[in-house]
Structures are given as C-alpha cells and as structure tokens.
C-alpha cells in the first residue's frame, strides 16, 4: 500500500473542492491523484464540470445547483478511500523523448535580462542551478539531469505546461532550485525551467519564475496541428506520461527545429503500462526496466 496520510478536503468557494493528499511532493501522492481523478472522470457524474489531477492534490469544480456541496464531499471521500489501492492500479502511458540543448545562448540571455529578479544576479540560471546542487562540471550536471526519467505530475499554468518530477530518486538525490524572487515577464518559448523539485517546458513566451537551464528543440503545443503526433489534442503533455531528456548540441538543435518547422518531425514515443505497485516495491530498478533501451 501507499504510505500516505489521510487526504485533507477543503471547499474552494461555492464551486470547487480541493483535496490535498500530501503537503510535500511524493510520487505516491501523484499516483493516487491520477487514480482518483481517473475513476471520477470515468463515472461521468452530471454537474461535475472540471477534474484536475495535480502534483500531490486534486481539484474538482462542480455546479452546486445540481449536486449539493456536502454530498459531493462525501462522495469524493469515498472514492479517495476505496479507489487508490496500488495493487489494482495500472496506467497506460507513453514515454516521450525531449531533445534538449542545455545551457543554450537564449536561456543565458534571458538569465541576464531578468537578473534583478534573481536570487543570485551574478550567475546565469544554469550556473546557479549547478552551484546550488554542488556541481562544478557542466557535463556531469547535464548527464545527471538527463539520465533521470520524469513523470508528468500536473498540467496547467498556461495551456500545455507540464510539471514533471524525477522518477526513482530519493529526495536527497533530486536536483532542486529556488524560484525567481519575482516572476520574469517573459520566458523563451520551449524554455526548460527548474523550480523547487519540478521541471517545466514553457509552451509559449510568457511569464515564469523557474530557473532556465536549456531549451527543448521540440514544441509541447501545436495549435496549427502541423505535427502528426500532436494532432489529437494540440498538446504533448498528458498526466502520467514519462518524459526523457536527450542532450543535444547546436547543430542537432537546428536540424530538429527545421524538421518541426516543415511539419516532418516525429516524436520518439513508446507506449507502456505503468504499475504504481511495482514502483512502490522496486523503485529505481523498476524505472530502469520500464525505460529498457528507450
């Protein structure tokens, strides 16, 4: 079983119920949020408007003219208790490869442009993240960051933005970074950000407060539906999917971005079954089995 405390429920105004599984981030909390929200979505309850699985919590929006707040609360509590037994959970998800140019010039330029909002204005974001995590060698940092597969634990902020969190690591092994003191007003599109223990890829130019450590060569949103693999929903991110970074250099970056522009790029993806039980039991070893030779 997951070793989790009792979920804490809260009314968010008259239309929302917020359920907090744990205050701190744990993969188990996220698996539970996915399980409960999947079950709720499957039941198609009239009057439930939005169901959002989040990092270590979930949020439900409902129409109180159709369902009473207290009845829905009782209903959610029951699903929360009974439908998150890890021995019965299986997620069909995808592993997706993200070609990433670490410490690229655009991220560096943005680091310096917004340095007055930065906790350590003399360093670029990349240098800062290396330093606070005890790295002195750039290649060692890149190897460590890209070797770990990341679980998509939440989608939100701006459409298509995915928080992803390392799989199979102990808390003390996770690369972490403080956020900006005050958010940047601009962020490069496809910028890879790190804040707390989470990574994101910014889908479009917009505000952001995570440290910019590199740039993805491939988009996570495609509103013109040019790319075969994003046709279904326009968005790459799905909660429960696993993203794996592959470090690339400038010429590889340019080659991939031009394939994206002409609509020819195909995402490297693999469908897998993810078992929360095996993850809980075997941890890192299970993650390695899942990844295989991907």
């Amino acid at each position: 079983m997951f070793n989790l405390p009792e979920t804490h429920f809260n009314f968010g105004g008259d239309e929302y119920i917020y359920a907090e599984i744990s205050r701190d981030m744990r993969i188990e909390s996220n698996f539970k949020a996915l399980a409960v929200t999947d079950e709720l979505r499957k039941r198609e309850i009239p009057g439930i408007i939005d169901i959002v699985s989040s990092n270590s919590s979930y949020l439900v929006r409902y129409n109180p003219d159709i369902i009473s707040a207290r009845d829905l609360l009782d209903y959610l509590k029951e699903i929360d208790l009974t439908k998150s037994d890890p021995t019965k959970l299986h997620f069909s998800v995808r592993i997706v490869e993200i070609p990433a140019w670490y410490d690229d010039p655009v991220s560096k330029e943005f680091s310096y442009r917004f340095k007055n909002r930065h906790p350590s204005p003399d360093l670029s974001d990349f240098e800062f993240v290396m330093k606070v995590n005890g790295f002195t060698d750039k290649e060692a940092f890149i190897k460590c960051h890209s070797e770990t597969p990341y679980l998509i634990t939440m989608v939100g902020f701006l459409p298509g933005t995915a928080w992803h969190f390392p799989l199979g690591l102990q808390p003390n092994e996770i690369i972490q970074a403080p956020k900006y003191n005050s958010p940047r007003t601009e962020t490069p599109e496809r910028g890879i950000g790190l804040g707390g223990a989470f990574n994101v890829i910014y889908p479009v130019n917009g505000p952001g407060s995570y440290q910019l450590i590199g740039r993805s060569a491939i988009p996570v949103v495609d509103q013109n539906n040019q790319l075969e693999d994003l046709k279904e929903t326009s968005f790459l991110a799905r909660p429960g999917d696993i993203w794996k970074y592959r470090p690339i250099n400038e010429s590889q970056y340019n080659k991939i971005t031009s394939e994206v522009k002409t609509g020819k790029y195909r995402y490297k993806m693999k469908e897998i079954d993810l078992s929360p039980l095996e993850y809980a039991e075997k941890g890192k070893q299970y993650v390695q089995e899942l990844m295989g030779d991907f």
Partner: protein
Amino acid sequence: MIEVKDPGLWTTVQDMGRVGKYHLGIPPSGAADKYSFIIGNLLVGNPVEFAALEMTLIGGEFEFHKNLIIALTGAPMEAYLNHQPLSLWETHYVKEGDILTIKACPIGVKSYLCISGGVNVPDVLGSKSTYELSQIGGFRGRKLSAGDRIPINEPLPGASKQIGKFTPLEFVPSFHHFQELRVMMGMTGYLMNDHALKTFLNSEWMVAHESNRVAYRYKGPKVSFTEQHPPFGAGNSFSNVVDIAYPIGSVLFTNEEELIVLQNDATTGGGFITIGTVISQDLDLIAQSRPLSKCRFIAVTIDQAMQARAERTKKLDALVHLIKR
C-alpha cells in the same frame, strides 16, 4: 454584422465560459460580470449564455450593418445612438447604418453589448469566449480592433416584443468604490500564521493598476508567513507550496505585501500560498472594481456561500418574470 469603428479600450467576445478543459491548463474565460451579462441577454430575449461584447472602461464605436435588437448593461458608460443619448439596462431597436458610440464610465469597469441572436463566432473547445493569452476563441482569439467586422446572428423570432423592456432600478448594481468580498478560507492558508490571517480579514485592500481578466492585484498591509520549512519540492521560499490547481477566485499571497485574486482567464495552477477562495457571485464585484478602489474580505461558511447563491438565483428568477417575452 457589426463593424468596429473604434474598439474602445479593451473589447472582447465573451459568453458564460469554457468548461471541462481546466486539466489541460485552459481557464474558463467568459463574462467577467456574469450578473450584468445575463441581464443583457434576458433583455434581448436570448438564452443567458449567448455570446456578447464585453467592453472595458471605454466602450468604443460600432456601426450596425443590419437591423438588430440590442441592450447595454454593466458599468454606466455614456452611450449615444446617432449622437442621441441611449439608456442602459433597456432593450433598443437599431437600424442598418446606425452608429453606437460608447464612452467612458464614471464608476465600474465592464459593460456588455448584448444582441438578439448573439455574436456569431465559432465555438472553440465548447465556447465562444476569448482567451487572449493563448489566442483561443472569440473573434480570432484576440481583443477587437478598428475595422473588424463581427458576425451577428439573425434576431430570434419574436425578439421585437422585447423592445422597450427595461431593468427596474432595484436590479441594477450600484458599482461602489468600496466592496465587501465574501471568501471561504482554507486551501493552503495553513502556511500563514494567525496574525497574518487576522490582518488579511481586518484590513482594507486597494486594487492595483495591473489588474485584468487574468488576476486582480491588491496592495495592503504587510502580512507574515509562518516561516515553517516549505514542503518538499516547493522551493525554498516561505510563500511557496507544492504547485496546486487554483480555483477561479483563489486568493494568493505572492509575497508578504501583495495579494492576487484569480479571475476567469487565470493561470490554472501554481505554487503560491492560497488563503481561500472568493465565492462565485462576488467575482462580478471584483470585475467591476476600478484601480485604487478598496475592498475588505469577509469570511463565510459553505452554507452562507450557498445562501448567497440561492439569493442570486431568486433575484434573477424574479427579473425573468418581469422582462420575459
């Protein structure tokens, strides 16, 4: 069709909003002041959810290219039809070639131009509302500009019976410079100490200039966080939690001197301490509050929130009875 001669300060197409897409990071959008929006649609004989134009502080100028039935509701913008004053909260008949000029409002922020048949733009993800940050929905995903030609549906059969109907004074909001906003406390407010919670509830807060459809920002007294060690994963700031999905109306502390109330075009999730959620009715009040105006937050229970909701429904039902066809 309506031709935009002058788009005003910030005019967009809105309806009751987009639902079921929050998990993709897509907020509901939709009319900021739903009460005024709904009455506008009732006046012209529409179902309440038909799309209309939402104007901000200064309305603009529009030429009608067909005969239509319209109503203006919301903030009392000064309005003229072919240079003759035009009353708000009342149904009017306009003819092809008529020019509607809508100037500034002395109080309030948002006004609605509702038209029988509704604005005819395509549904995107189930709604006609404009979400500008991602250019989703509305008229080409953006605010209107001069020269835009906005398609309008034919007036509904029988809508002409609505002409001359008006909203009795007791149903017209007062657009005070001081608002009392009802909030349900909770969410991640446990990271604030008792003193901070008291300061939040006992102080006046002033609307900052950089407030918009995404978020309203307020300045007030300094509050302090508990300075407990932030939860694992959240980063190292006392104002951060592990990122959550935010309800629309959530009250966030971005730092010890600024609070934000998320509006219909909200960023759907993030890691700021969330002290509670403003009830849905009072989001209309926020949308009509001008920069430098003030408010106070009043803590309510779920029963009080439901009571407020029931009162609103009752009020609108009474109005439907008065102005329906």
